[in-house]
């Protein structure tokens, strides 16, 4: 016999402790994401909260003057917030119709060969770096729009919305496509069997059924666009004013941080203010993510899928 039983007691003690070590070796890094998330929260709050000893939170959030480098600095982020919201909303106007429409096409209308080409293509395009979009916007689109629309500068909220919107389309398209594929075939079959056209089925049955799933895609798209930095940095114009029209330059929250962090001395009020902005940004995206998660879970439960 190759495996004498007398070996066993000695080996077994070694094996037990070794297996526990392995389990721990995997278990501890598993919490890394949570750990980093907590770490980010901690760091942002640690560096950003001290601002509110010097500036009242209400003044921070609603103040309309952002002059961090003046003799008598002012830290009102309303113009920055407004800039973010304008640009993000504008981008949504572009990316939602295009993204959801493309997803509908790929999911419902495209044949198998088309699907096999389009799906990977969209995935591929989702990977184009944001700096390339920003560069393209700055060098090609902005001058073009400036000439075309006779506006003082092409670097404005409109251009930024346009570019951001196009950038977000592959993401919204993929997420919506996933949501649509969860809708059971039985819904479609039932509708067609009643004499509805495919288009009617799509609009009146599939789309409503996928409603929460697509809303999730929209919320996540919104969150990503709001968090986007490089594109807006290069294209939105950089003026920290509350825009009155789409064609004015703006400075969203993200580009403020990116543009000014280099100049702010560590530990200075400016530095803390930028961290405070990051706190706000982080909290907002966290809220959106959680909302999307809840919505997505409710969507899957509604369709009868257990997760």
């Amino acid at each position, binding site marked *: *016999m190759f*495996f004498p039983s007398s070996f066993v007691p000695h080996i*077994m003690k070694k*094996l037990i402790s070794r297996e526990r070590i392995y389990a721990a070796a995997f278990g501890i890094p598993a919490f890394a994401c949570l750990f980093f998330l907590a770490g980010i929260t901690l760091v942002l709050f640690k560096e950003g909260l001290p601002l509110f000893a010097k500036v009242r939170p209400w003044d921070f959030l609603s103040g309309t003057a952002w002059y961090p480098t003046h003799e008598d600095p002012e830290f009102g982020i309303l113009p920055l917030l407004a800039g973010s919201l304008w640009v993000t909303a504008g981008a949504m106007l572009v990316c939602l119709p295009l993204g959801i429409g493309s997803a509908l096409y790929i999911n419902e209308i495209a044949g198998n060969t088309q699907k096999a080409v389009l799906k990977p293509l969209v995935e591929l395009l989702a990977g184009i770096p944001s700096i390339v979009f920003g560069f393209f916007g700055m060098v090609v689109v902005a001058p073009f729009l400036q000439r075309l629309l006779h506006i003082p500068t092409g670097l404005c909220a409109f251009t930024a919305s346009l570019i951001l919107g196009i950038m977000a389309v592959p993401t919204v398209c993929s997420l919506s496509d996933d949501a649509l594929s969860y809708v059971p075939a039985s819904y479609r079959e039932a509708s067609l069997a009643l004499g509805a056209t495919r288009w009617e089925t799509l609009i009146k049955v599939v789309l409503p059924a996928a409603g929460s799933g697509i809303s999730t895609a929209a919320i996540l798209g919104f969150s990503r666009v709001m968090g986007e930095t490089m594109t807006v940095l290069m294209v939105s114009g950089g003026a920290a004013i509350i825009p009155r029209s789409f064609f004015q330059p703006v400075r969203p929250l993200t580009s403020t941080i990116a543009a000014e962090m280099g100049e702010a001395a560590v530990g200075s009020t400016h530095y803390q203010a930028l961290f405070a902005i990051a706190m706000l940004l982080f909290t907002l995206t966290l809220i959106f993510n959680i909302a999307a998660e809840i919505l997505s879970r409710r969507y899957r439960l509604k369709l009868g899928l257990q997760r």
Partner: protein
Amino acid sequence: MDKEIRMRAEGVNFFYGSRPALKDVNLEIYRNQVTAIIGPSGCGKSTFIRLLNRMNDMVPKSRLEGRIFLDGDDIHDPDTDVVDIRRRVGMVFQKPNPFPKSIFENIKYGLEINGMRDKSVIEDKVVDSLKKAVLWEEVKGRLYDSALRLSGGQQQRLCIARCLAVEPEVILFDEPCASLDPISTSRIEELLMELKQEYTIVIVTHNMQQAARVSGNTAFFLLGEMVEFGKTQDIFTKPRDSRTEAYITGRFG
């Protein structure tokens, strides 16, 4: 019936969550004999056999009451190494599950994980196992081909060879022929008759005729209870329980 007892189940109750799957099972497995477990679908036979090598440990929220002994030792004793139990009590599954590796590698795996390093010894053992599983003649020219290219019956014999290589004492067969054609099935049944001379075999089968063909003792399970246990001949010709008789004669199942 007083041959040596290899494994014994005593008062075994098994629960999935709060649902009882096995109720008060008492059973003896005798050395160098084939013990068959028969019964209709859902009667608990697979659940029971998987307790014998503690595969059901991995089912969440399950609970075992009662004891199971291997050579007199309680296999659920906290001091016992479950990994060692699984080596000593091998298992062949319903659907052949060779690893996506070569035929040689499939068998080598079991040896490696149990500490064997010597290449020449490994080679000998691989050949030996393949011969015992009556697969050697068919694969000796292509040991390094992928195991997935073999037919269903060949794959199952490979799984048996893989199991034999680690020198188990008891081999559990969980409906091993369920996904095989009749010719492969009869080959495996012949193999079982050969193997019982060296190993103790427990086979779960939904095919009564198979149980009658290969086994020395048979246990009849119904709805989680072991209704009757005895010599195969007795069970099939003069069953003591009316339920056994009903199943044997095909009134249900």
